[in-house]
């Protein structure tokens, strides 16, 4: 895991102070492989889910093409999610600071961020999203493999197909709910978040407001000469 550091480059410094590297290049590349492959699976999966959304398959070359690529894109999504687990596993463990923050989450929802206890690199909601997606991906991968190759499964084990269908749908809906909230918060709600996952940087003020413990940890490291 790479260590976040303060960038003192004049190019990335603004009048409100230093800009801080929040996501390394590897983390950003990983996030967008996961994000784009998930969106592909979402669009094609919704096409298979409901006749009223089957037209979505036309966006990516028609139903048969969508059926061909959906499982491969799913494999890419699963691989990137497991890579993400390697990158963020330590940062995503839930701490006492998170539990205190979660108790006061109503202030977060109402944008009263000054009333929230300080937290580290990720907040409880981000961590919850991470773990929901990780476990959701495991379920989607296992059930998806069965749905990918239904014929080799012997008729005596057809209950496996039924189980796979139910699991795939349940896990997909769970991740879609999480995904809706994630995209809303990352783009519209938390300003600066979307830029940070693209260019990697946030302003010092942003870091102070949203992730103060992480900010202090990172800046301290800087002032102590690292």
């Amino acid at each position: 895991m790479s260590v976040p550091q303060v960038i003192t480059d004049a190019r990335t410094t603004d009048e409100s102070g230093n800009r801080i590297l929040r996501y390394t290049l590897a983390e950003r590349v990983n996030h967008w492989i996961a994000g784009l492959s998930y969106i592909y699976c979402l669009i094609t999966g919704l096409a298979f889910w409901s006749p009223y959304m089957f037209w979505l398959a036309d966006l990516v070359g028609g139903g048969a093409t969508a059926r061909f690529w959906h499982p491969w894109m799913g494999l890419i999504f699963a691989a990137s999610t497991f890579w993400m687990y390697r990158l963020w596993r330590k940062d995503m463990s839930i701490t006492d600071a998170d539990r205190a923050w979660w108790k006061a989450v109503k202030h977060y929802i109402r944008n009263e961020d000054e009333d929230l206890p300080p937290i580290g690199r990720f907040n409880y909601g981000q961590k919850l999203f991470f773990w929901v997606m990780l476990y959701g991906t495991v379920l989607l991968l296992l059930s998806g493999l069965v749905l990918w190759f239904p014929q080799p499964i012997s008729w005596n084990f057809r209950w496996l197909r039924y189980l796979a269908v139910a699991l795939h749908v349940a896990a997909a809906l769970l991740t879609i709910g999480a995904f809706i909230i994630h995209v809303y918060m990352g783009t519209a709600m938390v300003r600066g978040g979307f830029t940070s996952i693209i260019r990697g940087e946030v302003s010092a003020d942003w870091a102070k407001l949203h992730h103060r413990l992480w900010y202090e940890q990172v800046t301290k490291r800087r002032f102590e000469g690292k």
Partner: protein
Amino acid sequence: MSQGTLEVKRISGHPGPVPGAGVKREEQVCKLIDTTTCIGCKACEVACLEWNGYQFKETVFNNSYQTMPETDWNYWNLIKFNEHEREDGSLMLLMRKDQCMHCAEPGCLVACPADGAIVQYANGIVDFQQDHCIGCGYCMTGCPFNIPRFNPSTRKVFKCTLCSDRVSEGLEPACIKACPTGCLHFGTKEDMKGLAEARAQQLREQSGFEKAGVYDPAGVGGTGVIYVLHDTTNPEAYGGLPKDPHVPWVVRLWKGPAKWVGNLAMFFGVVGVTLHYLRYGPKQVVSWKDKKREPQ
């Protein structure tokens, strides 16, 4: 029978109503298979291949007369041979022609997500339209009879069409035409039921098969292919004919209530975040020195 009987009654994966469904009185067609007069000659297997233009496949020897263990994407009609020991210890060789049952309530069609890939004609024939098939294999999960088969080279699924092309021209299916013993019959569902019941009664009263009866399972709304069996209480003995077939409840849940619960959940998810934005707006970060109050 004319092209009129091939009016479409139901369409898989189709948003909205089926054009023209239910406006005319239609005769249901039916194939009757009398397993008690089948001699296992396999003329029906050959006729099926010939009419549908498939090559003869290599057979698989499995210690029986059966051509291969299961039907295949290019082998839709297979007589299943089963040695069956009766209660008195004597042996019977049960022979049952296996193919698509053309259910009134077709699990394949219910499960299929592709618009128009599976149609049920007004005359009861359930037919796959490979042009619209996306090769997902959901039909294989929906079918209670283990019938749809995947062709890996074209990535499409195939099965018996009940010779819908022949039936639409007023001909009987190819297997019926080839049968030398008259164990296969084709006609309206009503006529075939009558014939089957009469034969079953004859078996019960004159041939000593007290449990003889007609297999027309109600769990799938009845089928467009019905059997006369020596023992209707034990259809499994005829190469795995299910006793009480029905569309799997998971498939019903998936294509029924789960769909609406899921759609509503997704809809209200999007509505919810939109309302949040309208009520609270974005989190803006303002420089600390511009704020009157320092954060805790």
